[in-house]
């Protein structure tokens, strides 16, 4: 039985070179980086080097890199930490961003205004929902049918009360790559305009780059971001490791308190092997990213072309070109995603779905729904994400197996959705 893993967006295997780099820091160099003795200093040195590696890739300063326990934690720290630090009336000085206490806000946004895209990962959306409870106002900025942020709507959403913007670099479900540089320029102009008008309310720009880190440029100066999240488990690094880049002068309140590690922004004994592994993984991924992107791009486009040819009523979700090289997200109509997933699993092909039946909440994917696609599309959703080990032979095997599964499941399904290209959001459904 073949085993074809096509769920690299969920997590990647750890690169053997990464494991090798981490190995000494489990039982040989095990000191606490906070200790003054030799073992402690050795651990501290390893973390120093790892931090340096990352600064070279992000084009930033060492003190701007905060190691955390996951991408989710970095997102939480960014959203909760920045919003709470910039809360209107907090009176906290925010040096370069010039925050001072202000009055005269309407009661609806007492904390301040936050804008995030409506296809963010739950690690961003749920902290935002928490902030709403704390008195912040949140705008969930819409995307177009390809999953790209609607920039006109976004620009119109920005008000003088807006303190934080978060837009993911590339989406985890549909792989759509957002125009982060362009948004960075918009934010910069807002900042200049506020200075000109004597407004001192800061505006911070965060991007979740977890899915992008293996494929796209992470230079924070070029991107124009103030906060950037990435993690180890998506780039062939160790799970349970994350980074939040915090631009100097940008104030972020901690969400974890204790020994004051990471400049007081993230307490807890440093995970030395994890940090070393994360840096090594990022180094390898970024070194090979252009070559590997080209290779996976070809496989992706071949897959999309063939699957559309071999199966009727298949819709690609997300932008056809502005998408990660490893992402194929399709909706196969008249059948349900979990059923397809389990059949593929039986054939040794491992994928994921945005179907309601596969989620804890029994709600279908918010990302597919945000594209303006109806529930029928979300429930028939499959995500294939390729990786370093994926070959054309693997894709050909999937292309052989999938049409048969679809045919069998359609045989026992009473649903016949009629695709009408003109009005995709209101499909007609027959039951036979």
């Amino acid at each position, binding site marked *: *039985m073949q*085993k074809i893993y096509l769920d690299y967006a969920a997590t990647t295997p750890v690169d053997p070179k990464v494991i090798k780099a981490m190995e000494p820091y489990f039982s040989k160099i095990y000191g606490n980086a906070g200790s003054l003795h030799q073992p402690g200093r050795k651990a501290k040195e390893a973390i120093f080097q790892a931090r340096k590696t990352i600064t070279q890739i992000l084009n930033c300063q060492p003190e701007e890199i905060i190691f955390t326990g996951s991408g989710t934690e970095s997102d939480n720290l960014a959203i909760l930490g920045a919003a709470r630090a910039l809360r209107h009336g907090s009176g906290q000085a925010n040096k370069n961003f010039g925050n001072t206490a202000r009055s005269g806000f309407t009661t609806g946004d007492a904390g301040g205004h936050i804008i995030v895209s409506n296809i963010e990962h739950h690690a961003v959306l749920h902290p935002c929902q928490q902030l709403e409870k704390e008195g912040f106002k949140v705008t969930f900025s819409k995307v177009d049918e390809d999953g790209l942020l609607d920039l006109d709507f976004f620009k119109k959403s920005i008000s003088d009360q807006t303190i934080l913007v978060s837009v993911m670099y590339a989406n985890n479900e549909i792989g759509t790559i957002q125009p982060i540089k362009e948004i960075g320029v918009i934010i910069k102009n807002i900042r200049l305009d506020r200075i000109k008008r004597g407004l001192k309310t800061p505006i911070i720009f965060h991007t979740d780059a977890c899915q992008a880190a293996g494929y796209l440029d992470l230079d924070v100066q070029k991107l124009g971001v103030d906060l950037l999240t990435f993690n180890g488990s998506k780039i062939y690094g160790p799970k349970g490791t994350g980074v939040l880049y915090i631009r100097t002068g940008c104030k972020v309140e901690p969400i974890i308190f204790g020994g004051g590690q990471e400049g007081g922004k993230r307490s807890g004994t440093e995970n030395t092997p994890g940090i070393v592994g994360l840096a090594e993984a990022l180094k390898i991924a970024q070194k090979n990213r252009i070559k590997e992107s080209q290779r996976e791009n070809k496989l992706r486009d071949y897959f999309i072309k063939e699957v559309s040819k071999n199966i009727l009523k298949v819709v690609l979700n997300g932008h056809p070109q502005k998408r990660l090289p490893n992402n194929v997200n399709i909706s196969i109509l*008249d*059948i*349900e*995603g*979990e*059923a397809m997933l*389990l*059949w593929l*699993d*039986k054939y*040794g092909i491992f994928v994921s779905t945005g*179907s*309601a*039946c*596969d989620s*804890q*909440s*029994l709600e*279908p994917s918010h990302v597919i729904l945000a594209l303006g696609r*109806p*529930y*029928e599309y979300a*429930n028939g959703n499959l995500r294939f994400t390729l990786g370093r080990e994926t070959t054309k032979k693997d894709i050909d095997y999937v292309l052989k197996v999938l049409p048969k599964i679809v045919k069998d499941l359609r*045989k*026992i*399904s*009473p*649903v016949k*959705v009629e695709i009408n290209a003109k009005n995709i959001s209101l499909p007609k*459904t027959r*039951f*036979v």
Partner: protein
Amino acid sequence: MKTKKSNLKISDVTSQNIGSGWIYSNIVKDHFFHPRNFLLKDLKLKDFDAEGQVGSPQCGDVMKIWIKIDPKTQKIKKLKWRTFGCASAIAATSMFSVIVTEKGGMSIDDALKIKPQDIMLRLGGLPARKVHCSVLCDKAFRQAANNYFRNTKQYKKIIVEGSKVVDKRLNITEQDIEGAVLEGAKNLLDVQKKLKVGVGDPKAIPEIEQLIRFYQEKYYG
């Protein structure tokens, strides 16, 4: 987890999960990969006496059932189905079709007494969150039975829903809402997690919210 041979016709289904169970019971797995009694070809009207349908693709599950009844004994001679849904939905419908047709067929009256819990037991259990949304075959069958009674002019036998239907697309009744509240649902979100009520029929939501408040007060004061 050991697999009973009688449940499985092919041997490789467990190979992908060495040392760990599947996400559903082995019986669910068997009925999912080898569904029984589903309608393969387009049906000829004379082959069946009545049909019933429940669910909507928006909610993720649609079930359609066709029945053939022995006019003398009122036993179910044939039950065919089609299902749009996840593994547990497909397996539950398949199992239901087996329960009502095995051992010479169940009488239509007895079949109407089958509860989702009975199907669940025969399936060797289902994840709690899946029970309400995927075991809909009893409801589809109730519709088919009613249609049969109507077609054969047995009007007295038609089962008027014991309580009012609040969501027409899913055929969810006040009783279902009551059950969800008793199982611990506190608000619309909780109830929707259990029943998906109102997803395909948003107009029903205000009434559903009112019912939740009513049953909350009734049972928890």
